[in-house]
Each structure stands twice: as C-alpha cells, then as structure tokens.
C-alpha cells in the first residue's frame, strides 16, 4: 500500500467511516509509516481544536427579535385591509393575530396607477390606460365614457384597528381611520365603490414549480387566475406574472400562502375608484327605467323592447362592476432567484 492511497483514507478513518478492509489497511500502514501517522495526528488535532472552540449561549430575546423582524417585513408584503381586521374572531384569537399579522400584512400606501404600472412592470399597460384592473368587455366601454384614472394618492393607512383579541404587542401600527369599505350593490349617493388590487414580486427558486403552486393555490380556493405574460426583464431572469381574482374573505389566507413562496418585494396596493362609473351606470339605469315606463304608458311595444334590451346590457355592466368590487385582484410577479 502506498502512502497516497492511505492518505485518502485517513479522514474517514478518524471518523470511523472506513470499512473493515480499509481499517485493516490503514492500521497496518500506520504501524510502519511515521509520515502518515503524523499526518493523521495533525488532522485529529486540528479537528479537536475546532471542536473545542467555545460558543457563547444564544442571546436572550431571539424569539422577540425574530417576531419583530417578521413584522417589519410589512413593506415587503401584500397589504390588505380585510386582513387587518378579520371578521373571524377565532382566527384573531388563535395566536397573536395569526400569521397574516406576523408577516406584517400592512396597508403600505395607496399608489396612483402610474406607480403601480411601474412596480408591476406591466407590459400591457399603455399610458393613460388603466392597469389590468378592468378586463375587456362591457366595463371597458363604460370606462371609455366616464374616464377612469382619477385615483387619488392618499396617505399611508395603518392597517390594524385595535381589537381586544389582538395581543400581538409588537405591531405598533394601529389606526382606527381606515378607508371606508366598498359596499357592492348598495346605491346610496355617498357610497364609495372601489376595486382593489394588490401586487407583489416574489423571488422563487424554481419559476415553473412556483407557477404551478400559485395555480394550485388558485384552484384550491376557487379563484380565477390567468398568466398575464412572461416578459423578460433586462437582467434576463425568468419571470412570470399571474393574476388572481379572489373572493375578499379568502384573500388573506391566499396572500399568506403566497408570501411563503419566497422573498416578497415591490409590493403595492391600489384602489381604483369605481364610484363614478357605478353612479353613472345607475343613473343610466334609472333613466332607462323611466323611459320604459313612459313607453309602456304610450303603448309603444317596439320602443319598450328596445329599451329593455339596453337595460339588460346596462345591468350586465353593473353586475360586472359589482363583481370587480366583490373580489380582490392579486397580481403575482414571480422572478426566478438565480443562484450565482
């Protein structure tokens, strides 16, 4: 046996990881080779020294610091008003306001559409056109009439209203003045109608796997989804944009699970006011109803049928708007985290 062959066995030998035959070979060789013996002794000495390096105990308060750090990620995580004050009391009581609170679901700020477009790098959005908040269809036509894009930039809203069940003491963000919630279907003159859209970029390890996970998540929660595009940013990393339309009461749990896919950044929250559109449609409907009543009075069946057809169409538009308000659009921008 030559020294070179033995030398490769010394490391496993000192860990007891050589087999019987190797063991015997090493022992025999060591008995007659001072050079290999010395090498083994040195390696053992180095390992022993390292093993004895003193490690101070973990400082106290790690749990609190970790919790704080997680909460501090608020700016990196989707914001969601609904999650701020869950309706389910038990959920809130379950454990320091639940994971949604822990990961800091937080209303960051309400950004104007232009900022959203930038953050989302939405290729589809052209200047002046609304970003993805409205799909193609009758709603677009109404948008064309009334002109959308009068979103206001508002001050940052704190998400968490005080709640007796909320004992997540580290969350310092409380503000009772939250945005008046949208009330779909109600037509009081002073009603506020908004479509809400949340966006975030998530860095993931494997873009295809994560895309599948998002789709699975969407399907499991009955959310509509579509893969918007797969544009390549300048850096050349693989990306995928997925849009989910989710029921408001399911949004918090979906966001929670999305946030676990990877590092979340570039988040934004946007509310597009539909008040004007909604009132406009409602007004049209009222006028049409009056006209229909008039036509009926006049016995003009042809005009009445024509008006009723228009009414049907407008009701469709109204439903569409209500649908937009009942759901939250989550735009997930997946980016593959390329390992160097």
């Amino acid at each position, binding site marked *: 046996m030559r020294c070179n062959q033995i030398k490769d066995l010394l490391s496993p030998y000192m*860990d007891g990881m050589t087999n019987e035959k190797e063991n015997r070979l090493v022992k025999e060789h060591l008995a007659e080779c001072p050079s290999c013996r010395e090498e083994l002794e040195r390696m053992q000495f180095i390992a022993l*020294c390292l*093993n004895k390096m003193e*490690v101070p105990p*973990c400082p106290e308060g790690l749990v609190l610091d970790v919790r704080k750090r997680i909460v501090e990620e608020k700016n990196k995580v989707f914001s969601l008003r609904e999650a701020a004050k869950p309706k389910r009391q038990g959920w809130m009581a379950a454990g320091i306001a639940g*994971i949604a609170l822990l990961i800091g679901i937080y209303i960051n700020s309400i950004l104007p559409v232009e900022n959203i477009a930038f953050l989302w790098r939405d290729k589809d959005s052209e200047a002046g056109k609304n970003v993805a908040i409205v799909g193609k269809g009758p709603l677009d036509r109404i948008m064309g009439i009334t002109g959308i894009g009068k979103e206001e930039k508002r001050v940052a809203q704190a998400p968490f209203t005080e709640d007796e069940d909320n004992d997540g003491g580290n969350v310092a963000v409380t503000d009772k003045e939250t945005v008046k919630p949208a009330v779909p279907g109600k037509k009081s003159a002073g009603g506020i109608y908004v479509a809400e859209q949340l966006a975030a970029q998530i860095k993931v390890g494997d873009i295809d796997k994560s895309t599948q996970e998002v789709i699975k998540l969407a399907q499991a929660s009955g959310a509509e989804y579509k893969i918007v595009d797969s544009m390549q940013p300048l850096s050349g990393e693989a990306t995928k944009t997925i849009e989910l339309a989710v029921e408001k009461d399911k949004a918090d749990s979906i966001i929670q699970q999305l946030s*676990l896919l990877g590092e979340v950044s570039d988040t934004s929250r946007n509310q597009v006011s539909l008040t004007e559109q909604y009132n406009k449609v409602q007004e049209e409907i009222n006028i049409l109803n009056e006209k229909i009543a008039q036509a009926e009075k006049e016995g003009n069946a042809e005009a009445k049928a024509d008006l009723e057809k228009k009414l049907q169409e407008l009701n469709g538009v109204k439903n569409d708007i209500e649908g937009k308000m009942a759901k939250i659009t989550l735009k997930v921008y997946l980016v593959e985290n390329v390992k160097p």
Partner: protein
Amino acid sequence: MYTDEQLVKKSLKGDVAAFEELVLRYQNKVYALAYRYMGNEEDAYDITQEIFLKAFRSLRTFKGNSSFGTWLYRVATNVCLDELRRRKRRVIPLSLDEPLATEDGDELEKDIIDPSPGADIIYERREFSEYIWTFLNQMKPEHKTIIVLRDMMDLSYEEIAQILNCSVGTVKSRLNRARNILRKKIEEKELLF
C-alpha cells in the same frame, strides 16, 4: 408537548406561537452553527435571525422527508453560505500584482484577509481553537461548511449528506479534501508543528 412536525403544521395554519416554540427549541443549535461560521457574536446573532426568517418563509417546503432539525440546518447552512459568498465578493484584493495563491488547483483565496499572527501572539492565546478557526475562515465556503458541520457541530456523515443534499460518498471525499487543505494551510505557516 408537540412534536416538531406538529408545530410546523400549526405554524402553517397561522399559529405564531407554534413557530416561536420552534425558534426556542432550536435557537441554541442554530446560533452555535452561525457562530462557528461567523466567528463573532454580533454576526452570529444577525445570521441566526436571518435563518429563522428564512425558515419561516420557506416552511411550506418542509415536507417531512428529513427531521425538522436537519431541514433547519439545511436552511441555516444555505443562509451562512450565501452570506459568506456575499462577503467574499465584496472584498477587493489589496494588491493586484500579488499573484493569487492557488491551492489544490482551484482555490483562489488571497482576497480574504490573512490573519497570520506572529508566533508570539499565538502563544499568548489561551485557545488554539480561535487561531485554527481563522484558517478555516479563509477556506472556500463549501470546504468551510463541511468542516463546520462535521468537526464543530459533530454531525454524522448521513446528517451532513441530508443537509447538503448529496451522497455520503460525497461528504466523505469533500471532507477529506477540506481537512487536507486546512492542514496544509496551517502547516505552511510552520508555526504549529
């Protein structure tokens, strides 16, 4: 008393206290790993936080194929490796005309500060351990990792293989290689032996 796996499930369902229980259970082990990587308390504490944050974010990827402890070590090792690589990239060689020392054909490590304390300083040290560690700290992150896991954390080859997602054979050969590089590094100084 819940098992780790039960706590993971509870955490995923939104039970924050369950995740904090996991932090409590593993904080000393994770901190010890971080300390052995970083060599000082401040960095070790920062990295420990990062590790638990990363673990929290990727909790969903824990499928129970290994023990939670092993999975957490994997997360911890990855965070430490990322940090080491990040730091390494940041260091600019002081002297550009000084040839980079190649060791074992592929190690270019002159960009790391060479501690090389004089012999007198070494004898003043109460512990050789810290001194040896400074050499370990000069090694390639992959080599440093395997030595930290084996010689400092006392983990078995099987555990290391699970943590690094490789075979026991790979652990064996990589450890052999790393230990020999470290030994030669120290021998070069002709101080210890």
